[in-house]
């Protein structure tokens, strides 16, 4: 009897799992001509496949738990005055798009992709180009930003935005992105328990990576090259910095790594090469510097006022 019951339950599960996950095709000669029309027809669990072409229907609000996949790198054109995708649902996957022309505004931060949702259990993006702000995550939790190419176009230097911008976020993975030509490559403000791995951040106006008021984050295996300064960690606690390369951050106010008012950090097995100042630290306490390599810098480390209980180890 109990075996019969479990069999029936098994069938129910199978029938449920096959009933979701329809594929909706968007493009010329496809059932849906626009992304909006496919989104309106989709239900949670569906996949919308967008075929190559240029789509001018920004902003695209994604308010259902769906997967949006670009085939042949379709282009979403924001026509210089709108945002690209705005994700407002849990469990959204977005991949394979090129986003263009998000434009610049003093009033609002226009992003290629904006995520505003408290629990994104799976949020992925891939491969795209944009202007001004790239990916803007506000109040997002548990997401992945992976394998994106983000090319900013500095519009008069002070006016460029950040490439990947986190504001009040937690548990976000940022992996394998190539980031060029923004204000800050990756910007964290009130972002906790996030992991930043294997990214290349170069040629940014200000910092390759910037922490403000962000605690318990880790960054590892990244390259920061030719930025105003490589990485700035400010007003933050318990940041772990492992196996990164800080390279060619050269100029009047340029540092490989700038530490200001931080506490209980670990800086281990990084390489600092050809920076005006490898590490500049001020007002930073209880920092462990372990097995870092300093090659051809103007200064390896400059320690300014208010630094207590820091340890430098070399094994």
């Amino acid at each position, binding site marked *: 009897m109990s075996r019969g019951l479990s069999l029936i339950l098994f069938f129910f599960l199978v029938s449920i799992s096959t009933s979701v996950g329809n594929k909706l095709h968007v493009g010329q000669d496809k059932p849906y001509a626009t992304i909006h029309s496919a989104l309106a027809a989709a239900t949670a669990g569906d996949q919308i496949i967008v075929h190559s072409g240029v789509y001018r229907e920004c902003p695209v609000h994604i308010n259902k738990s769906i997967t949006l996949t670009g085939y042949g790198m379709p282009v979403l054109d924001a026509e210089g005055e709108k945002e690209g995708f705005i994700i407002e649902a849990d469990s959204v996957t977005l991949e394979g798009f090129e986003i263009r022309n998000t434009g610049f505004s003093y009033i609002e931060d226009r992003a290629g992709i904006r995520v505003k949702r408290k629990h994104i259990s799976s949020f992925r993006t891939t491969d795209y180009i944009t202007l001004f702000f790239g990916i803007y995550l506000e109040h997002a939790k548990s997401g992945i930003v992976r394998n994106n190419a983000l090319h900013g176009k500095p519009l008069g230097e002070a006016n460029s935005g950040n490439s990947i911008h986190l504001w009040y976020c937690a548990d976000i993975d940022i992996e394998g992105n190539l980031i060029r030509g923004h204000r800050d490559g990756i910007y964290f403000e*009130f972002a906790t328990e996030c992991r930043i791995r294997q990214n290349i951040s170069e040629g940014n106006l200000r910092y390759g990576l910037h922490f403000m008021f962000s605690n318990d984050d880790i960054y590892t295996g990244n390259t920061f090259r030719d930025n105003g300064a490589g990485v700035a960690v400010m007003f933050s606690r318990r940041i772990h910095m492992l196996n990164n390369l800080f390279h060619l951050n050269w100029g009047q106010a340029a540092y490989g790594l700038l530490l200001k008012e931080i506490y209980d950090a670990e800086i281990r097995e990084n390489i600092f090469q050809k920076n005006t100042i490898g590490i500049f630290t001020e007002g930073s306490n209880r920092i462990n510097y372990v097995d870092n390599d300093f090659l051809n810098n103007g200064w390896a480390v400059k320690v300014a006022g208010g630094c207590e209980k820091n340890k430098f180890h070399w094994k």
Partner: protein
Amino acid sequence: MRTLILLTTLLIGACSAGPQPIRYGEDACNYCKMTIVDQQHSAEAVTLKGKVYKFDAIECLVHYVSPLDETTFSHLLVANYDNPGVLIDAKTSSYLISPNLPSPMGAFLNAFDDANRSSAVQREMSGELHNWQSLKRTITTRNQIPN
């Protein structure tokens, strides 16, 4: 004698130096060391002797100036939120701290040249209004780093 007059003229000329334009993307904040990039939130202080201090955020100016004697400054200037890149008098500006208007150093602090305008933005964005004196009290008593 002629040399002396010339020298005196030169020295007086050097003393009367006023505010300097901020080179965005190049100048660093005197208080927090960050490169100044945000034209809506920058600030500047000039001493009576003509020394210029530049800041990336108004909150950095407030932190810098609050423990000092304000009468030793000839100019205290803040960026006008409505007119990016233009600096206005800090003592007569109206300030809005709004959770919906972030500023570079986490104080959510913005300056307007006119109290009617800051009230109008407050109605739209919510937040609290301040003058220069109440702003200094508010900013310096808040904890900067979350635990």
